[in-house]
């Protein structure tokens, strides 16, 4: 076998490739916007960053959405979507309260595990329906969004969990800090790191990308598509369950409106962070930065003196800008590749 090459390998040095990749990466772009937003708002009102509560809130407020966006990303990567996470969050938050009301001495870690397991079961239901029912996830999870919310309303009724129902050791989590960083934020970041590492380095994680990139090809490759899609929904459900526990710890009160509408924010965060809605590409890091940006914008705009109406519109504009940017870049890349092939 001859080993001579027809053409010399392209002489792009590894350093240039890394730098070039970083410059083009969506994560960096969104992060830059986030930093700029924080800077501008801080110039306008230095309490936004430099007061003790300002810094804490900056890190603490996004943690719920961050956990949800992480789970959502895992699902979107497989070319599906999970709209039921808001209802799952609400149910799990209420479950947390009830567990403490009914069993006052329950250790906090047990409640965390219960919330996660409960969410995983709800996610499993979604996963089974989507991967074996062969119905689009959009429809299935829209259905379970209402069903889970309805179950929540029936279960809770007009009852609500109050801060006084929760043990002090639990509600303190909402304000506690470790080395100046809120504990709940640390939990969210640990979850993010685990999921991100899994997606990057485990075979199952890479297969999720493959399935989203081309489901038919994934079948021909012999990948276990149904099982992997199921896994994605279980992860998303489990993280929504965790987010429910975090919700209870953060706010102390849980009424039947908990988590209402947050699923679309989770999708929005993922899209802004560069997760392709048709699956196959994007990272949880991007989605996390997107979640940070979404939450921070909502807090910054009032300080910048922008009215309520425009706050919503700015979020919408951000999503459209993110999608337009993707389209533009992919068109440019396609043209380049076509030219390269035509040489």
């Amino acid at each position, binding site marked *: *076998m001859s*080993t001579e*090459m*027809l*053409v010399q390998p392209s002489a792009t040095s590894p350093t240039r490739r890394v730098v070039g990749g970083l410059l083009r990466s969506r994560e960096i772009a969104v992060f830059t916007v986030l930093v700029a937003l924080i800077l501008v708002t801080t110039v306008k009102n230095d309490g936004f960053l430099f007061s003790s509560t300002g810094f804490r809130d900056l890190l603490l407020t996004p943690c719920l959405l961050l956990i949800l966006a992480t789970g959502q990303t895992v699902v979107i990567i497989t070319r599906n979507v999970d709209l039921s996470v808001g209802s799952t969050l609400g149910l799990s938050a209420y479950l947390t309260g009830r567990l403490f009301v009914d069993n006052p001495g329950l250790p906090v870690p047990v409640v965390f595990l219960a919330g996660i397991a409960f969410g995983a079961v709800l996610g499993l239901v979604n996963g089974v329906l989507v991967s074996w029912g062969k119905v689009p996830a959009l429809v299935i999870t829209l259905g379970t969004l209402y069903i889970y919310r309805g179950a929540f309303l029936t279960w809770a009724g007009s009852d609500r969990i109050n801060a006084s129902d929760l043990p002090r050791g639990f509600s303190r989590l909402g304000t506690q800090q470790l080395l100046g960083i809120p504990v709940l934020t640390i939990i969210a970041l640990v979850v993010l790191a685990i999921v991100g590492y899994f997606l990057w380095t485990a*075979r199952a994680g890479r297969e999720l990308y*493959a399935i989203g990139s081309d489901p*038919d090809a994934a079948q*021909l490759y012999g*990948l276990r598509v149904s099982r992997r899609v199921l896994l994605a929904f279980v992860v998303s459900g489990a993280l929504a369950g965790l987010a429910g526990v975090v919700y209870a710890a953060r706010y102390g009160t849980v009424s039947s409106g908990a988590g209402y509408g947050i699923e679309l924010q989770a999708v929005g965060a993922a899209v802004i962070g560069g997760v392709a809605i048709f699956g196959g590409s994007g990272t949880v890091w991007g989605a996390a930065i997107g979640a940070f940006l979404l939450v921070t914008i909502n807090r910054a705009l009032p300080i910048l003196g922008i009215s309520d109406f425009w706050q919503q519109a700015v979020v919408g504009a951000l999503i459209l800008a993110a999608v337009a940017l993707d389209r533009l870049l992919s068109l440019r890349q396609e043209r380049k590749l076509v030219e390269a092939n035509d040489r």
Partner: protein
Amino acid sequence: MNETFQSAPEGGVPVLELEGVQKSFGAVRALRDGTLIVQPGSIHALIGENGAGKSTLVKIVAGVHRRDGGDLRFRGESVDFVSTAESKAAGIAVIYQEPTLFPDLSVTENIFMGRQPLRGGRRIDRAAMHEEATSLFRRLGVDLDPRRLARGLSIADQQIIEIAKAISLDAALLIMDEPTAALSGIEVDRLFQVARSLRDEGRGLVFISHRFDEVFALCDTVTVMRDGAYVATQPLADTTVDALVAQMVGREVGELFPKTAAPVGDVVLSVEGLTSAGVFTDVSFEVRAGEIVGLAGLVGAGRSEIARAVFGVDSYDRGTVRLGGREVRRHDPRSAVRAGMAFVPEDRRKQGLVVEGSVARNIASVVRRGLRTAGVLTGSAENRASGPWAAKLQVKTSALDMPAATMSGGNQQKVVIAKWLATEPRLLIIDEPTRGIDVGTKAEVHRLLSDLAGQGMAIVMISSELPEVLGMADRVLVVCEGRISAELDRSDATPEKVMLAATRRDAGPATPGSTTQEVQPA
């Protein structure tokens, strides 16, 4: 990673044995008698016309489809694969006609997906993976950045990835379904080198191709299939291109396709020097009133693309299309319809029908503008306009209100034809008029086309069924790799001539020992 390949114990156990394998899809019998025996250390050619059942056979071996009956043995043991994962694990690698890649993932990940090299903690070892990909590419003699995304790769490069994937599987049996269709001469040579070295290691290879020069250059044994059944297996040294062609087409053209002679009138369609870079080149032909011109050739030769360009669905780079002497604007199907062209596409469910809409709505869909009363289109106007056409084509008129999706393939095709006849065209382009249609309706469609020609319509018919082309067409244009390689008159057109013209290659790799013959255009 896989265990290293061990050649089968001596004693001549074939790598692969299929005997009498059957497979039906609904009412269509794709495979009646799939028989193929591949020895280790051999490159086995599998040839046959379009629709002879080669791809179905491959997909059964690969575990994509399950067979309805017959024996399948791999390395001497009876097997029944229910998924591609199983056949892969057993040691069968398949390169499909259409590359199946993940565009969002890197070239390397595409090769190793699902079986990436691991290091401690079951983590993917990217360094090792890239190294292996690089050495695979070196072996294939190509320069591809293992880290680049698969998106945007040329078809040839995609095919290279498929080949690298198959080689890295270290399989005992490698099946290649037309791997060379998109490759240039030098890439084909590289592929052949690799194939020969795999053969010398004692593996079995199956090579499906329409190019005789390549079959003779690479393979040692050949199996011919026809109409879903085994015809013959023979050493290539003992046969010739002519003998193989005769085996591929060996059947009589029945009376199923009666084209009655019609008076031929003026030129209706005249195409000159039509060229679309990379798709077809310098295509010129004329069609006269009352004439049916058949476009024959292999799937992927560019027949449908030519038709789509003439009708204006696709654009083209050079050349002119004239209808009745007047030039038709390029890439503008609306003006083509106004000029009097009609186009029945290949895939009627996707491109020819609104399957959710009623039959009446479908038939009236092209003439709709003229049916409006004060700008409003009523259902009764649609019914009135479509009724006569439906009756003429014997579409059950009680079905006018039914959604088109509920009808059989044959009736759907009639609806599509009726839709266009309602525009009273001078030229009808029809792509695969009877694909997936039962025999009875097939004959009706043929009689209809014959009648239309008799009334003075000019018809261009694209068909992959040789008997249909030969039975229906007054003239046959054979398309091969984007060019018209032969023009045969009805009296002159034989299956052998058409097959040869459809498979000849002018610029193939050097092929010592090839006995390819070329047919001169009539």
